[in-house]
């Protein structure tokens, strides 16, 4: 059963991955990409790595792809113009493709791959989550923390680069707004007729 499920999901991954580059509309491309991510999560579930599968969905589909979609939808790019002259890049594209294919072939021929039937998704622990947590917070603690710090630096860098202090923009001061009372804002007057205030 699992084999058929694998072929079905793998087919969906391949078709959607192909459609990412074949689709004319960039928004459709991103939607296909989302399907590819989601189906890859299905493949991870099939080998028993359910924690990684859920993380893939939460991080890539739930956050990264949303940003892709936002950017692609907002950009006003003339894609017909962009597509012109793509033929010039054919040799380069073929070169990259050949390199990728060669690497995959080399990895499968010379690599020590584990058979899917003997593959253990959670070595040395009861669940997948535990197994990942154990290596991540012991063996690879330094790398894990470094990755976190790099992300933090990247985030601060992006904020610093895009933050502009513009004095003319009006800002909401929530504390001031919520601490306003009726006596601060409303003043009752009793004007005499014909005189006004």
């Amino acid at each position, binding site marked *: 059963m699992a084999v058929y499920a694998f072929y079905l999901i793998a087919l969906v991954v391949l078709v959607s991955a192909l459609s990412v580059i074949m689709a004319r*509309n960039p*928004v*459709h491309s991103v*939607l296909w990409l*989302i399907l590819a991510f*989601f189906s890859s999560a299905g493949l991870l579930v099939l080998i028993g790595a*359910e*924690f990684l599968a*859920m*993380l893939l*969905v*939460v991080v890539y*589909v*739930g*956050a990264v792809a*949303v940003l892709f*979609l*936002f950017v692609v*939808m907002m950009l006003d790019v003339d894609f017909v113009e962009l597509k012109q002259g793509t033929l010039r890049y054919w040799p380069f594209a073929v070169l990259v493709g050949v390199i990728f294919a060669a690497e995959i072939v080399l990895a499968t021929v010379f690599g020590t791959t584990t058979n899917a039937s003997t593959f253990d998704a959670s070595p040395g622990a009861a*669940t*997948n*989550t535990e197994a990942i947590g154990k290596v991540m917070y012991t063996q690879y603690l330094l790398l894990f923390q470094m990755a976190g710090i790099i992300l933090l630096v990247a985030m601060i860098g992006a904020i610093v680069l895009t933050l502009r202090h513009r004095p003319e923009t009006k800002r*909401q001061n*929530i504390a001031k707004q919520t601490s306003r009372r009726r006596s601060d804002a409303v003043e009752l007057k009793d004007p005499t007729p014909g005189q006004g205030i």
Partner: protein
Amino acid sequence: MSNYVESFGQLWGPLLVLGQIALFTLVLLLSIAFLLLLDRKVWAGVMMRKGPNVVGPFGLLQSFADFGKFLIKEIVIPAGANKTVFIMAPILTCTLAFASWAAIPVAPGTTSGTSWVISNLNVGILYLFAISSLGVYGIIMGGWASNSKYPFLGALRSAAQMVSYEVSIGFVIVTVILLVGSMNLTDIVNNQDGGFWNWHAFSFQNFPLIIVMFPMFVIFFISALAETNRPPFDLPEAESELVAGYQVEYGSTPYLLFMLGEYLNIVLMCAMMTILFLGGWHGPIPLGEDFVRDHPFLNAFAGLFWFMFKILFFFFLFAMVKAIVPRYRYDQLMRLGWKVFLPTSLVAVLIVAGYVAYMGVQS
């Protein structure tokens, strides 16, 4: 389960699951019909109106009449709309809303440690989180495919809001996971066994943690309101100011699917709050081990009753909030999510993690 599979051949297992799915779908659809009416009735009651009272006794059949109307109406697809995506968006919303229910345990099983659930996932809570984070696509796709300014702006607002509040929901979930030491929803519920004082919202077994966990419960409730685009955070719709946000161009069955998905998500959030903080199927007073051992089926149905009762309670709260609380401004909404809830829940995660590590709560 495994006995059945062996004796009835390989087909029985998938058929059983299909039957469970059909049952869940049927029950969910029927309860949504009446919950929708309850929502409108509560809202009307607060405003001293009568609410729907024409179709059937007390208007009980109103939702079915609405359902028929939505089905019969013509589907209008705006010119220049991206047809495939336009039709797919509501279907996606509705499908995802149903898919989440596959992992929700509704009642205790007849043997200890099990539960009535379609799929007892080890990463159940993460699955719910993942599926609910996908919900934003239905909205973005619907808004974009309509090929019109207002749905698009509504969709952007809505998406930004949902993504923002997902973060604090995630951290609140982490506090509960830390206390339980498992992401399995059945384990999470079973961890709150033995009386209402053991529920995570009160956390009596880890006494001082009530200072952290009860506020987390409140934060989760408010974030759930924002996540489901309910008042007071219904800025994308804001029917008294704007048109219907991302759903402007939708009518007939596609709109029905959007609304169904929205209400399913609301009930799902109620179920999540029940499971994470209010002890799931556990009643406020424990039935006693003898009773559970002697009458496993009665215990299961008592559990089912409590689970549904708690969902109903939360749904009532949702309806009351809709009736009572005035709408937030968009900048207030963003400020609440990023500047209040996110730091608070982050500190709470630190405190709970420290407590769990120091006191050795988990095994």
